[in-house]
């Protein structure tokens, strides 16, 4: 399980450029989907990597699924060495993705995002359209199972749009 509030507040306080994607984004859009981790897409600049390192340093991040005694240094050099990271932290499982299949890199993901007010912070969340593209591209059974609800939700919201 992951504690959303400290994760989101810490990322926001450090002014990290990020977009919430995955199961948490689906829930924010109003389905009963349950997930275990927090996935976000991040901007891969040195400055942003420094901010991410600082935001999560006190949550003792380690690579998930690796032995506890395997040396792991949480710094921007480590983040520069890859694109996607699955982390185990003291507040739960957090996944960092440099790009989202079906949507693209951070800039494309940011374009497909909206701002939601969460824990008194303005946070970018992937749109329903973006989530549908990502789930289609991922193509795993668990991703495809959520598509009918997301597509119905998109249809209902677009057909009743008041703007």
């Amino acid at each position: 399980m992951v504690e959303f509030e400290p994760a989101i507040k810490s990322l926001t306080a450090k002014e990290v450029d990020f977009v919430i994607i995955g199961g948490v984004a689906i829930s924010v859009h109003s389905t009963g989907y349950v997930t275990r981790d927090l996935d976000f897409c991040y901007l891969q600049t040195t400055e942003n990597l420094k901010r991410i390192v600082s935001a999560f340093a006190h949550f003792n991040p380690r690579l998930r699924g690796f032995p506890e005694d395997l040396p792991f240094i949480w710094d921007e050099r480590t983040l520069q060495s890859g694109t996607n990271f699955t982390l185990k932290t003291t507040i739960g499982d957090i996944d960092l993705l440099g790009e989202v299949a079906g949507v693209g890199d951070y800039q494309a993901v940011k374009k497909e995002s909206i701002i939601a007010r969460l824990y008194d912070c303005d946070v970018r969340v992937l749109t329903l359209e973006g989530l549908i593209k990502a789930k289609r591209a991922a193509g795993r059974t668990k991703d495809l199972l959520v598509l009918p609800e997301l597509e119905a939700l998109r249809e209902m919201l677009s057909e009743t749009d008041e703007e």
Partner: protein
Amino acid sequence: MTEKLSEERLEKIRQLIMNPRPGSKVAAAKEFGIDLTLTFGQLRKTPQQRLDDLQSAMRGLEEFARAGAEWRKRNNGRI
């Protein structure tokens, strides 16, 4: 993102769920087995309330898993 949908809009959505247009995504979801009344319940809430619901569900599931693990430990791995 809209904090909360208006009652008027929610009513329109409720009508779409109760009387889905043939060939629509709403009809397809219902046919697939999705209970859209649950989705509608979530639509009445703010994004923060939806996230709070998810956090609460995660805590419940974790507690359930922990209880299961303790049960197995007490019963030598048997379920």
